[in-house]
C-alpha cells in the first residue's frame, strides 16, 4: 500500500513554499534539551483529542526496540538482521533496561510520552483494508459491523449538536473513523482555508450565496445521493464561518504535510468552536516492504519534528492541558525481515500518547520468542482497551457506550 506523495502538488505553490523534503522553517534550539513541565489535565468538558492515523502499518518494534540481554532482545537481533535498530540509533526511554526508543524520536521523548506496547487485536488479519476498517469502526474482531466510526461515536457523546463540526479529518476526503449519527463531522483539505469560495463583486456574491443556500436545503422526497450532496453543500457553508474565525498560524513547524496538518489542528484547538476531535491521516509510506530501516527512520524524524512543534504551540498558548494526542495504525510489521531488507504485514504495533499523561510504558512488551503462526507478535494490549481508555479516562464517556468489551488502561491519565 502506498499513500499519496503530494510532492508535485506542494511544488505548485498552492501550499506556499512547503515541500516534503523541506527542513524546519524556524529551527529552534535542540528540543531534546528542553524539559517541558506538562500541566495536569483540564476539566473533562474542555478536553480535546487528536488522533494521528498512521495508515500503511507502522512498525512499533522499530520505534521502541528491545535492548539488553534478554531472550526477546536476542530474538529481535536475530530475526531482524537486516532491519533492526542498532544500539547506536537508540536512546533511553523512561529509565528502562529492556526497551529503547529510536533516536529520531528524541523531541517526542522530551514531551514525556506514555507508550502502549504490543497494541493489537485478538484475531489479526493481514489486510490493510480490513484492519483499517476495524480500527476506524472500533470493531476489534470483525464482529460488530457498525455504520459509525469509533471517533464518530465519541463525537456523538461529547459534541454539541449545533456546532458546525465536532470532529474533523484533515485529509482529502471524509474518514470512516468519524462517521457519526448525531453531530456533524467533516473533512477539510489541510491546504485550504475552509472558507466558502466567493465572487469578489458584492452583489454577485450575495446572489451566489443566497442561491447556494436554497440549493443546499434538503428535500424530503429526494434520494440519498441527492440528500448527501445537499448536506455537503450546507455543511460547507456553515463551516466557512468557523474557518474564517480561526486564530492565526503558529510558527516553528516543519514544511512537511504533517507539519501543515498539525499547524491547522492547533489553530482549531486554540479556541472553543465546538471541535473536539481531530483525525489526522499521516501521509507517509509506513508500508515498508523494502528498505525498512532507512525509510522508517526518515518517517520517525518527520513525525518527531511536526509533533514537537504542535505540542510546543499548545504549551505556549496555554492549551496543553486540554489536548491529548494519540496514535493508531492498522498493524505493525512482520517480525522476521524479508530479503528485500523490508518487513511484510504484521499484527500488533505500539502507540504513543502525548499531552497531560503519565510518562511510562504501558502493558507488556511482546514476547519475540513466542510469535503467532504467521511470525507476528501476539498483542498484549487490545484495541478495545486502548479505545476504552480514550473514551472513559480522557472524555469521561462510559466505555460501553462507544466500544464493545474494553477495559480502560489505568495509570496513563489521572481522571
Amino acid at each position, binding site marked *: 500500500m502506498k499513500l499519496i506523495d503530494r510532492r508535485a*502538488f506542494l511544488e505548485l505553490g*498552492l501550499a506556499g513554499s512547503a515541500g516534503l523534503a523541506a527542513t524546519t522553517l524556524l529551527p529552534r534550539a535542540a528540543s531534546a534539551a528542553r524539559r517541558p513541565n506538562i500541566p495536569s489535565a483540564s476539566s473533562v468538558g474542555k478536553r480535546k483529542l487528536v488522533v494521528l492515523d498512521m495508515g500503511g502499518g507502522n512498525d512499533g518494534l522499530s520505534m521502541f526496540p528491545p535492548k539488553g540481554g534478554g531472550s526477546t532482545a536476542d530474538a529481535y537481533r536475530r530475526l531482524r538482521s537486516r532491519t533492526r535498530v542498532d544500539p547506536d540509533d537508540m536512546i533511553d526511554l523512561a529509565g528502562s533496561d529492556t526497551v529503547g526508543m529510536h533516536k529520531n524520536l528524541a523531541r517526542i521523548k522530551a514531551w514525556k510520552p506514555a507508550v502502549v506496547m504490543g497494541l493489537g487485536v485478538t484475531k489479526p488479519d493481514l489486510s490493510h483494508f480490513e484492519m483499517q476498517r476495524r480500527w476506524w469502526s472500533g470493531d476489534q474482531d470483525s464482529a460488530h459491523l457498525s455504520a459509525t466510526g469509533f471517533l464518530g461515536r465519541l463525537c456523538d457523546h461529547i459534541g454539541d449538536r449545533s456546532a458546525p463540526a465536532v470532529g474533523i479529518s484533515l485529509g*482529502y476526503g471524509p474518514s470512516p473513523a468519524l462517521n457519526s449519527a448525531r453531530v456533524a463531522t467533516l473533512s477539510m483539505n489541510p491546504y*485550504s482555508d475552509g472558507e466558502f469560495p466567493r465572487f469578489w463583486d458584492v452583489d*454577485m456574491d450575495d*446572489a451566489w450565496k443566497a442561491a*447556494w443556500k436554497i440549493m443546499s436545503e434538503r428535500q424530503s422526497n429526494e434520494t440519498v*445521493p441527492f440528500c448527501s450532496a445537499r448536506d455537503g453543500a450546507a*455543511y460547507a457553508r456553515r463551516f466557512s464561518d468557523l474557518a474564517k474565525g480561526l486564530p492565526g498560524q503558529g510558527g516553528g513547524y516543519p514544511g512537511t504535510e504533517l507539519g501543515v496538518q498539525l499547524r491547522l489542528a492547533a489553530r482549531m484547538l486554540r479556541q472553543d468552536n465546538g471541535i473536539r476531535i481531530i483525525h489526522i491521516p499521516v501521509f507517509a509510506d509506513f508500508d515498508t516492504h523494502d528498505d525498512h530501516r532507512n525509510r522508517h527512520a526518515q518517517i520517525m524524524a518527520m513525525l518527531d519534528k511536526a509533533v514537537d512543534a504542535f505540542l510546543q504551540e499548545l504549551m505556549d498558548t496555554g492549551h496543553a492541558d486540554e489536548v491529548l494526542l494519540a496514535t493508531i495504525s492498522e498493524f505493525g510489521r512482520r517480525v522476521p525481515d524479508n530479503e*528485500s531488507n523490508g518487513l511484510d504485514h504484521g499484527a500488533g504495533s505500539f502507540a504513543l500518547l502525548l499531552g497531560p499523561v503519565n510518562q511510562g510504558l504501558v502493558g507488556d512488551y511482546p514476547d519475540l520468542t513466542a510469535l503467532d503462526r504467521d511470525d507476528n507478535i501476539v498483542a498484549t494490549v487490545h484495541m478495545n482497551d486502548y479505545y476504552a481508555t480514550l473514551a472513559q479516562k480522557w472524555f469521561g464517556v462510559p466505555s460501553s457506550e462507544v466500544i464493545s468489551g474494553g477495559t480502560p488502561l489505568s495509570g496513563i491519565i489521572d481522571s
Partner: protein
Amino acid sequence: MPTTTQLVAHVLRRTTFGPYPGQVEAYASRGTARTIAAMIGRSALSTAHPPNLTNDDSSDPVKWWLGQMASHSAGVHEKMTWFWHGVVPVSHSKVYWWQVEWPAHKLVRQYALGSYRSFLQKITVSPAMLIYLDGSWSTVQGPNENYARELQELFTIGREKVTETNVHHGALALAGWHTDHDSGKAVFINERWASLGSSHRVSFLGKQVYRADGVVDAVCDQSATARFIAGKAWYYFVGKKPSTATLDRLAARYRKSGLNGRTLVTEILEDPKFLTSRFTRPRYPVEWVVAAMAAMGLGSRQLMLDTLWGMGQVPFHPPNVAGWPTGDGWVSPSLALAKAALAVGSPAIKAVVDASDPVAAALKRCSMYEVSSQTRKALKRVGEDRDLKSRKSDRARILLALCLSSPEFCLA
C-alpha cells in the same frame, strides 16, 4: 417517464467524461440503444504522441491523460481505462519513474476492453508493478508477500477468499523477478534466487503452480475473480450494488467470455437497470472536473490538475493499492468547497449571456436535462435578482457556477 434526451444525457455521463456542450443534443435523435452502441464502438484514442517521460518530477503524463479524457472522441474505452487504473493501480508517488510507468499504462489501454487474464499476466511482471508492489528482488529464500496478497485480495478473488497459506505460496511462485535499474526492463533470475525450479511447484488455490504465470492463471481460473470484477464494473456504471441474481448472471457471462472487458461492459450497459439508475453515485472528481471544464469552455490542464489535487483524485496517484474509494464521500463538504472554488471562475458564456431564458441556457450548457425543483428554485433566485438585471454577463457567470455545484451535476 424520462425523456430520450434525459436518458441520452445519462448514457453520456456514464460512458464518457462528458457530456461536453452540444453532445446530448447531437445524440438525442439516435436514442439510447444506438448511443450506447456508439460509445462502446468508439475506437481507443491514439497513444502515438506520448507525453514527455524524461522528467520524473513533471506532471506531463497526468496532463496527457486528462487531455485524453477530455477528448470529444473518447468513449467507453477511455472510461474503462480509468476503471482499470482504480482496480489495478500503479502509483507514480512510489514508482517515480515515468519510463517504466508508461508501458504499464499502455497495457491498461491495450486491454481496457480485452482479456483481463492477459492483462494480469503482463502487468504482474511489468517493471512498474514489480517496483510498486515490491515484487522486485523478492526471492524464494525471503519472499516479499505484498504482490501475492494484493493480487488476490484486490485484483481477483477478494478478501473473503484469501488465506495466509495462499499468500505465502503465491509469493514463493512469484519470486525471482526484478527490475533492472539501468535498462528499466524486468528480468527473471533463474538461478540462486528464484529457483524453485520446474519440479518444485507450490500448492496454490488447489493447484500445483509454477512461476508467476501459473499464479495468474490460477487466480483467473477462480470463479470468484469474474464475480469480483463484474461487481466492481457494475457499480462503476450503474452506481448501485448488483442483486445476487444479476451478479450471478453477469459473472457467468464474463467468465464464459474469457474475462473479456467488452463483453462485460456491453452486458451491463444493455441491462434495463442501467437506464433507470440515474444519479445513483457521485460524479468522481476526474469526471466532474473534465465535464465542468468543458461546460466552462476552459482547457487548462494545469487548472484541472490543481483542482484534482485539492479534491483528492489525481490520475497516476492513487491513495493506495485499493485505488480510490467509491460512494457518497465524493459529495462531502470539503469536496463541495473544492468544486465551488473552480466554479466561481466560470466565464460568461455567450450563449447564456444572450439567451432570453438564461437559466435554461445555463442548464443546457451543462447538459442538465433532469433538474429538481429545489435546484430550479436556486437558479431562478439568480435569474430574477434585481441587482443583476442589467448585468447579463455577471448573471451568466453565477448561473453556470451554480449549475456546476448542483447535486444534478455533482452526481452521475
